[in-house]
């Protein structure tokens, strides 16, 4: 089962992952990654904007490509949009497979592609001022290792 969601309010990754693993009895491995908004560094808020006609369909394509490439039993892919506070979950990927290696690799593959390819724009608020977050070279390097 592939489940992909854009969420516009705070979510509990554990509740989603619990339901996801329960839906796949007999799986051998599940690897879950949860990304949270980093605190410190004066960041008061992070805002994610997206483009509805492209963002969700792009994530769905990535999810099915990931599931095919690693032979997954199931894949859960959740991403927040809107305004978030430090400590809030922003992304959750959970990959279910027969064996651990595929589950680990699929979660990393999905995250590397989500970070650098998915249609999200982020800006952060510091000292009452918003500023856009630019692309980072590391994200492209993370992606290149899957070529």
């Amino acid at each position: 089962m592939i489940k992909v969601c854009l969420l516009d309010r705070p979510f509990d990754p554990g509740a989603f992952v619990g339901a996801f693993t329960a839906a796949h009895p007999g799986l051998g491995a599940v690897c879950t990654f949860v990304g949270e908004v980093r605190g410190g560094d004066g960041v008061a808020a992070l805002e994610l904007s997206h483009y509805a006609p492209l963002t969700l369909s792009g994530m769905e394509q990535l999810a099915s490509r990931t599931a095919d490439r690693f032979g997954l039993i199931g894949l859960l892919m959740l991403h927040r949009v809107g305004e978030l506070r430090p400590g809030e979950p922003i992304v959750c990927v959970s990959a279910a497979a027969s064996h651990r290696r595929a589950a680990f690799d699929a979660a990393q593959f999905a995250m590397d592609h989500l970070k650098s390819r998915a249609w999200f724009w982020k800006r952060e608020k510091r000292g009452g001022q918003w500023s856009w977050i630019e692309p980072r070279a590391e994200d492209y390097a993370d992606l290149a290792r899957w070529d």
Partner: protein
Amino acid sequence: MARLVFLGKLADVAGAAECAVKPGALADVLARLPAALAVALLDERVRVALNGELIAHPEAVILADGDELAFLPPVSGG
């Protein structure tokens, strides 16, 4: 009318997330925008989607009534 949609920091340059424009060839549409915005939209890293589909040759677009053209700057990563 047709609609232009500005994502990410292009919305700041435009001063709005979207605007209504007179249909026509993209070059003519851009010529009627503020110069700073037109230059930002023409950045080669900006991708363009017509009615929700990415297109390879935006310069060839002729906007019809009701079309939506979105300008997508590089995504943020991080």
